[in-house]
């Protein structure tokens, strides 16, 4: 029996629903009314769109950095011996990944709103209310909150895999805590860090939902621009062009990151 043929249903499926749609994006981004043109791409060079792209990258970068700075110590603590019920805590950290991210984002929007729970409490205590939402801060907060578990998990997995003997050997050879961390623990946990960065940076770069709910329509990111072309202005060509640019940025980031580590088993994602 030729068992390669088992893959044929998938080959056909992937051809129609993965390859053809991508080709359609390429086609629509270059052809307007059947004419080859670069106009969709030149339109993107306008100040407004370049700024949105810059903002997307910088907000995604900031939230990835915050996630990393918060998650690495957490993963180290969880991997250490001072925490007794680590299984439960790990489960609690992963659990939100199975909750609807819309609802979780919306939950925070509710708390942080101008007349939301926190401001009501502040007002009741005669303290000045704070305007948390509807700006970059709110969006960054939402990204960090939403994607944090995706950073903790791979780093924790990478740390847990490190042979404890290596760390003891470093101490035996006279290294102090900082040297051991810098020369042994950090390099060995890099695959996890790389996976975590990809898992946070990618969705943060392309989100349009968090911006909608926590940015109050004032923050325009690249995802919002694509969404707008397809749902409101109906400019498929321009929307496709922006998607192409986004894909290229994603691919460059992936290529850059995967040179520094691997996405495979070592990353501990699957």
């Amino acid at each position, binding site marked *: 029996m030729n068992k390669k043929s088992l*893959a044929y249903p998938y080959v056909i499926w992937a051809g129609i629903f993965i390859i053809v749609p991508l080709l359609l994006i390429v086609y629509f981004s270059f052809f307007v009314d059947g004419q080859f043109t670069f106009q969709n791409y030149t339109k993107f060079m306008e100040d407004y769109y370049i700024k949105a792209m810059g903002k997307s990258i910088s907000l995604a970068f900031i939230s990835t950095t915050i996630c990393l700075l918060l998650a690495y110590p957490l993963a180290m603590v969880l991997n*250490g011996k001072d925490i007794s019920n680590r299984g439960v805590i790990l489960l609690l950290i992963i659990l939100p990944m199975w909750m609807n991210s819309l609802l*979780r984002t919306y939950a925070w929007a509710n708390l942080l709103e101008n007349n939301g729970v926190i401001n009501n409490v502040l007002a009741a205590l005669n303290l000045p209310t704070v305007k948390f939402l509807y700006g970059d801060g709110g969006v960054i907060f939402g990204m960090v909150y939403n994607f944090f578990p995706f950073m903790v998990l791979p780093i924790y997995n990478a740390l847990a895999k490190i042979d404890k003997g290596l760390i003891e050997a470093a101490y035996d050879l006279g290294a102090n805590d900082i040297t051991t961390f810098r020369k042994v623990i950090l390099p060995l946990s890099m695959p996890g860090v790389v996976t975590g960065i990809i898992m946070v940076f990618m969705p943060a770069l392309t989100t349009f939902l968090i911006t909608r709910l926590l940015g109050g329509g004032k923050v325009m990111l690249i995802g919002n621009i694509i969404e707008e072309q397809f749902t409101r202005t109906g400019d498929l060509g321009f929307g496709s062009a922006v998607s192409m640019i986004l*894909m290229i940025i994603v691919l460059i980031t992936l290529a850059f990151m995967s040179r520094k580590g691997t996405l495979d088993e070592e990353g501990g994602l699957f």
Partner: protein
Amino acid sequence: MIKFIKRFYVALILLIMYAPVAVLMVFSFNDSKLPIWKGFTFKWYENLANDMSIQQSFVYTIIIAVVSSLIATAIGTLAAMGIHQMKGYKRNLMLNITYIPLLSPDIVIGISLMMLFNVLHIPFGLPTLIISHITFSTPYVILSIMPKLKQMNFNVYEAALDLGATPWYAFRKVILPEIMPGVIAGLFIAFTLSIDDFVVSFFNTGAGVDTLPIKIYAMARKGLTQQLMPFQQLCL
């Protein structure tokens, strides 16, 4: 002291992660539209239970999740076995194609499928939703089964054939039990992804066919805060 700081740090992060859920849980019983405590009530839950459109979207979500995850698992299991047999550039090509939906942004998957359905004049609705969910979940099924195939010894399968088993019988009795954990994991991932998906569904849904995430988004945009709160609890 250091031990205390470590524990405090973990507790703080857990607090931030669960604070909104906890607060909203309390307020979902609040008898007021504003976030000020007015008294205990079940009325938001009753509203939810009586809202036909929400029940409908719940039914759609389940139908789509069950159908798409079963089909994705079937296609994915066969594909994993087929790809496992492939060699050289064919194998690499198939694996790379499989990685595309994993690595490309949700929004690009969503709009590219939307354009395909537009070009083919397929009306948006339940079928387009199911097709798009199968498309983004099949790669996860394949990737959860591939490692299991790699671990298994194919000589056992051939031995079964030599001993007179039909290919189908050998598949059921030899291969399937070996890869079953991968198949189950794949099915589970596909089901969860489908239930949770918003972005792809958002672009590929038709009039009147709402999944729960889409319904929630629509309600959130209208500012129907209070009606949403019970959702939180039900989803937990």
